[in-house]
């Protein structure tokens, strides 16, 4: 082994240590806690206990799924129209505006929504005042503390994570590829479905990943906008670790996290398979 190879190995050492301490060890601890009881003895009780949270998992996945779909539906046209702008500086400005809310603290953004959609919040107050002008009395919409409010919070907070990767792949599509499509006889709609959409698939996939994963494990959004009416799996895990609802139990919390992690891994795996399959399917009809 020569010196430069040694040198390179030495330079990667800090990262190896970092990965070990902050990735491998925590995951190992999660696994350890999942399969032990408070006394540190091996047990499967924690895993068995998860059965009672089946409903919570389902509702978490359902809300995250709905939020992801809404994000995709909103983000694609946004990303597409920004990427089509002729002036590059305008593109950058638009992207910055999309990013701007993310420079503000996550909690503050979510609190802001609370004050908007509360029963006595800005929106209801305005509607009541407006209808009152015409002599109507109105009780106001109940928007907060619903599943809809949680989805709203997820969509609002995670939308930029969907816009950015899609925008990036769209700007990478070579103009001459689109011209080639037109040249071969594709009209505007066909250009979109046969070239632009399939070529932006990698961006869509990573957008979905980046929205779904934080959405499925969130607990702040459900707590603030769901008002404790809808428990998500993130809330349950938080409760076990902080003891908000009775005793502190790292073991059940860890088991819940482990299962969530596995569920996310499985869905990511399916996503990636799906990506490859569409690629093959579109290419391999013979």
């Amino acid at each position: 082994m020569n010196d430069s190879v040694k040198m390179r190995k030495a330079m990667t050492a800090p990262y190896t240590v970092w990965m070990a301490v902050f990735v491998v060890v925590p995951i190992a601890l999660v696994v350890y806690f999942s399969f032990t009881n408070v006394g540190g003895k091996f047990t499967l009780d924690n895993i068995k206990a998860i059965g009672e949270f089946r409903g919570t998992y389902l509702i978490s996945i359902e809300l995250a799924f709905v939020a992801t779909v809404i994000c995709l539906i909103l983000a694609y046209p946004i990303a597409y129209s920004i990427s089509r702008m002729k002036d590059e500086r305008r593109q950058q400005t638009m992207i910055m505006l999309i990013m701007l809310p993310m420079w503000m603290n996550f909690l503050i953004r979510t609190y802001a929504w609370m004050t908007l959609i509360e029963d006595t919040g800005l929106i209801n107050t305005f509607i009541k005042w407006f209808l009152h002008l015409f002599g109507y009395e109105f009780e106001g919409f109940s928007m907060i503390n619903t599943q809809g409010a949680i989805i709203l919070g997820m969509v609002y907070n995670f939308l930029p994570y969907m816009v950015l990767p899609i925008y990036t792949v769209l700007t990478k599509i070579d103009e001459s590829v689109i011209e080639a499509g037109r040249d071969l006889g594709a009209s505007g709609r066909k250009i979109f479905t046969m070239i632009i959409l399939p070529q932006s698939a990698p961006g869509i996939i990573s957008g979905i990943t980046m929205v779904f994963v934080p959405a499925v494990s969130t607990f702040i959004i459900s707590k603030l906008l769901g008002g404790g009416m809808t428990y998500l799996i993130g809330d349950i895990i938080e409760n076990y670790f902080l003891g908000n609802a009775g005793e502190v139990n790292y073991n059940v919390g860890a088991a819940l996290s482990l299962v969530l992690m596995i569920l996310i891994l499985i869905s990511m795996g399916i996503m990636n398979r799906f990506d490859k399959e569409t690629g093959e399917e579109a290419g391999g009809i013979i």
Partner: protein
Amino acid sequence: MADVINLKNICVSFDDEQILKNICLDVEDKKFLTLLGPSGCGKTTTLRIIAGFLQPDSGDVIFDGKRINGVPAHKRQVNTIFQRYALFTHLNVFENIAFGLRLRKKSDSEIKKSVSEMLELVNLKGFEEREINSLSGGQQQRVAIARALVVNPKVLLLDEPLGALDLKLRKDMQKELKSIQREMGITFIYVTHDQEEALSMSDKIVVMNEGLIQQTGTPLDIYNEPKNAFVADFIGESNIVDGIMRKDFSVDFSSHNFTCVDSGFKTNEPVDVVIRPEDVDVVSPDKGMLTGTVTSITFKGVFYEVIVDIDGFKWMIQTTDSPRVGENIGLYIEPDAIHIMHKSEYSDLYGDYSSYSEEFDELSDVGAVQEEEENE
């Protein structure tokens, strides 16, 4: 033979800059026509107008006798080979070629048949399932050709298709393209800045510069009878000297009277005289029509490239003799080696090898480097 495309008084400007100035061009059916010129001369713009990617500010685009100005690209019977191939990377070779056929709603068996015929034509049999990114530049180029030809265009437009290939591959592809053109019996409109490529492939060459057509003609016409100093200099090497036409078949230049084969000029009209480096014979000083001093000599393989100073004007001569630097030599020029041109705006800009050096020549071959960069 009938014309397949006519361009009539085409003008195009971008941001107040006139790119095409009143271009008129007739393209004969089933011929190989080349648009040749340095970068920024308007050749690619002309091609894009024919393809339908660009609408002219004024003028008519005629296809098969019909005006097609407003017709969008996807409804025109012309197809394009793009400089960077512009293949669909999300599809494999088969589906790239089948793309145009699927849009035309052909049946699967028809598509399969046409695609394999095309793959055979471009020597890519067995590549159906390959991904685009796994192919070399030359193979991608062939896929692009097959993809455009499979939809049976009447005219194929090629925008510097060989620019990104290395020299050897480029030579092979030139031959192949030419034979494909003959085999398919369709019109090719080929854009290039490479004069050698243009001379060896074309039936007809259109030399362009600064948005204007400088000359149209067969490769032989263009080479032997350049219309002005720009064309003479752009196509091959040329010595271009000031001369005065004394009368028909008699011209004065470099303080000597020469017999030539040109006529029809005014008496004592100032003209540009073109003499190709390979048309000058080196003789002993006493036998020469002109004498000069050798200032440099470069071995080029088949010949020596000799720079000779004649009364302060540097000539380039290509000869199999090898005079020494500093030697006084005589030059002999046959009457039919002398080509007379009217004075033009390009007079005195080209054709003097005073500042000539290999390096400089490469730098001044602007087209090659710049245009490739532009298209990165």
